[in-house]
């Protein structure tokens, strides 16, 4: 399957988390998503994880839970993570 682009992930984040007044092009590929970066919090992390799992049917069986924080760090890292674990194209 084709890799997911960072633009696609940014659209997904904005749509899923109702980020008002933010356009995908305003988010840098390597910008931290949480805390001082985009300002997302732990509820957003759960919401985003759940939505990605549903939308892309992510296969996370072999994934160590402690690595999620690393994969959810930036749009670029998240796009790479979803690309390597997804089972469908949306």
């Amino acid at each position, binding site marked *: 399957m084709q890799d997911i682009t960072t633009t696609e992930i940014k659209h997904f984040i904005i749509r899923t988390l*109702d*980020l*008002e*007044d933010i356009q995908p092009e305003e988010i840098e590929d390597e910008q931290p998503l949480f805390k001082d970066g985009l*300002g997302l919090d732990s*509820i*957003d992390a*759960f919401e985003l994880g*759940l939505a990605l799992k549903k939308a892309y049917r992510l296969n996370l069986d072999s994934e160590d839970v402690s690595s999620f924080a690393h994969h959810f760090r930036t749009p670029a890292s998240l796009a790479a993570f979803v690309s390597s674990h997804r089972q469908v194209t949306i």
Partner: protein
Amino acid sequence: MPHTFKIPLLRASVWSQAGPVSLSPFLDQAAGAPDVAFLDPLIRRRLSPLGRGMLHCAHRAVGNLGPMPSVFCSRHGEASRTLPVLDDLAQGLQPSPAQFTMNVHNATAGIWSIARRDPSPSLSLAAGPETFAWGLVEAHAIHTAGPDVPVLLVHGDAPLPPLLATFDVVPQPLHALALLIGLPARHHLVLTWAPEARTPGVQGLREGPRATDFEAPGGPWSSADGAWIWRVD
């Protein structure tokens, strides 16, 4: 013997989708999209249309005043968020964390407290069709106990989701109201309760003063606990 509550008001703000029904100079009135620009975008994105209406009114009533206790009341609260959570659980799915977090009855009060960094006591209540009336009594009681500090009363309600709508025999439109109770009063809300006017054998439905009546005070409203009349002086 009737009991009269004379509640000192500093400001009042109402919001509804439909728009104002009166031109009272005392009331700050608004319609259309609620103005919640005072909230950080990352905070306000979690508010429902009901929460936005309630905080629009709260902000209009409080302005830039400092910390104060608050009473938030809503008959159904965030029922439109609760239903999808229950739906997911019924299907064995994980519910949305954001929906779960914001479906609790004090969610809007929590956002208000966080946004204003106000650690004052806050109460969130529901009391069926008499929700607004008892919110009013509660806020007045808090102010009477500490009259040096204003008390914010915020009320809001929205129609129930279609699946639950048949349970609501007194449906109300999406609306919100905030009253700032404090001294020195600019107006008084005079609420009279006559318990002897109780209708014998009244069962089930109770009708008290409703927030949607605030723009046109009057009565009497009949309830299982008596009759209510109000006016703004």
